[in-house]
């Protein structure tokens, strides 16, 4: 479903991505882990099109999307949940989701109020992520955990084929983490999910396969149990790995 080949991205002299290659299958749940600065968020930014790569290419369902703008990739079924919440603060939870629902129909519909079906769909999604009863609350007054739930609802409203989750449990209490993990685990199996996470329990619970990023490269790629036992991965996290210049 997603194919990334020799992806490179430099900032000045810093090589954030130094030849990243990985392939995520249809319906697979892939975790991307690695120490801070390994390039995980940069990888996501290149995948969504917010950052152009300095080399390599990106494919979605076989089609090359390296040159496409973010909104074009979204239309092709790529959705993202951001690390730092990116919502429409003064709008209600319902309106936040409705905007995502309406994106498919296109915005150039003027002179009529938005169809009720959009708001009904929004409410259904809010219920699905556990925000029933909070539909009218403005996004900015929601708690941190509730906002992450809302983010998920917004992303799901895009009816994506691929979902990119950028540290979905960051800053959450154990109870909230458990709830979000259950939610993600219960998502449609046809959905391909790429998840960046630091919390290993979440990774082991959700992922089919794991890719380990270090200094802009994939150093290990395998099932959860394979990665668990991989010495290189341990070294990377404990700082013993020697940098490949």
């Amino acid at each position, binding site marked *: 479903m997603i194919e990334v080949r020799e992806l490179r991205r430099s900032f000045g002299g810093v090589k954030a991505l130094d030849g990243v290659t990985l392939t995520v299958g249809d319906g697979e749940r892939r975790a991307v882990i690695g120490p801070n600065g390994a390039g995980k968020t940069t990888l996501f930014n290149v995948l969504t099109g917010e950052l152009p790569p300095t080399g390599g290419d990106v494919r979605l369902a076989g089609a090359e999307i390296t040159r496409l703008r973010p909104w074009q990739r979204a239309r092709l079924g790529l959705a993202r949940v951001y690390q730092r919440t990116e919502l429409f603060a003064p709008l209600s939870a319902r309106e936040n989701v409705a*905007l995502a629902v309406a994106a498919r129909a296109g*915005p150039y519909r003027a002179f009529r109020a*938005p169809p009720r079906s959009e708001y009904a769909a929004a409410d259904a999604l809010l219920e699905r992520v556990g925000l029933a009863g909070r539909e009218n609350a403005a996004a900015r007054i929601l708690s941190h955990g509730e906002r992450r739930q809302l983010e998920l609802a917004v992303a799901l409203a895009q009816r994506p084929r691929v979902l990119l989750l950028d540290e979905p449990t960051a800053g959450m209490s154990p109870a909230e983490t458990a709830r979000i993990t259950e939610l993600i685990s219960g998502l449609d199996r046809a959905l391909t999910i790429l998840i960046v996470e630091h919390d290993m329990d979440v990774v082991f619970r959700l992922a089919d396969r794991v890719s380990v990023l270090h200094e802009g490269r994939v150093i290990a790629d395998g099932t959860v149990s394979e990665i668990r036992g991989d010495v290189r991965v341990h070294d990377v996290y404990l700082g013993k790995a020697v940098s490949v210049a």
Partner: protein
Amino acid sequence: MTRAARWVALAAVAVGLVTFPYWSAAWESSRFATTVLRDMLVFAIFALSLDILVGHAGMPSLGHAAFFGGGAYAAGIASQRLGTDQLPITLAAAVLVAALLALVIGLLVVRSEGIFLLMLTLALAQIVFAIAFQWTAVTGGSNGLAGVSRPTLFGIDLSAPDRMYVLVAATFLVVSLLIWSLMRSPYGRALTGVRENERRMRALGYDTTRLKLSAFVVAGMIAGVAGALSAYSQRFVSPGDAGIGTSVQAFVMVLIGGAGTILGPVLGAGVVMYIQRVLSSAIPVSETVLGLVFIGFVLLARQGIVGLGRAAYARVRAP
């Protein structure tokens, strides 16, 4: 108040507004109030169009007078060069010229934001002003375009002050209704999204560049309509109609009244016009008053009069 009652009240106000010169003749025969109200409504249309950019789309523009002046000149020049007074023709000329200007300027500014957008729109509008000021052969140069005739519509001559007023008031009502319904539609909701978080809108699949450009052109066209009405009313177009002073004036109206609403720009136009036309004959420091009022709103009531009203209403509602 029920919804139906609200509509009836609005309709009553609308009718009263359009027929103002006829029922006010009893207590003011000098037509001063009619003239001031007429000019207020012209600027209300202008301010409403700017609010599409400033309040709804989140694109602060200090160059909106380019479309107002452009429309004014187009209407005036069309009526003189084409030798016609037909309203549909001269108004169409104004809208067309304004739309074209807005498209060109819009394409150039649509990727900027914040202070850069402010300065870019200012600079580009100055080009329009400079052309108006110096292209004497076409625009009359620094002396302006004089002798703009008032239009006729389907044979009805609209030169008389009360008829001119009706044209302006009717146009104002149409424009208000248009913008109101536009902002409630998916299009308006998308603009709100762009204003609040453009990055997220792109991630959702909206082509925000095209959305912003379309808003720019729509706002420009409506400003052009206001400009044409100004040309007819004053029978005169000056380069200042495209200048920074006019742009600033509209911005002040939007902010004082309340950006992002329908009532806001209208109230703002009323307040500013009142200060400039009525207060100015009573006291010599009217512009100073305007400046101080504006400063006050920026500091203390950023959401304008409408914002103050909403806050007061909320306070009353839930103590």
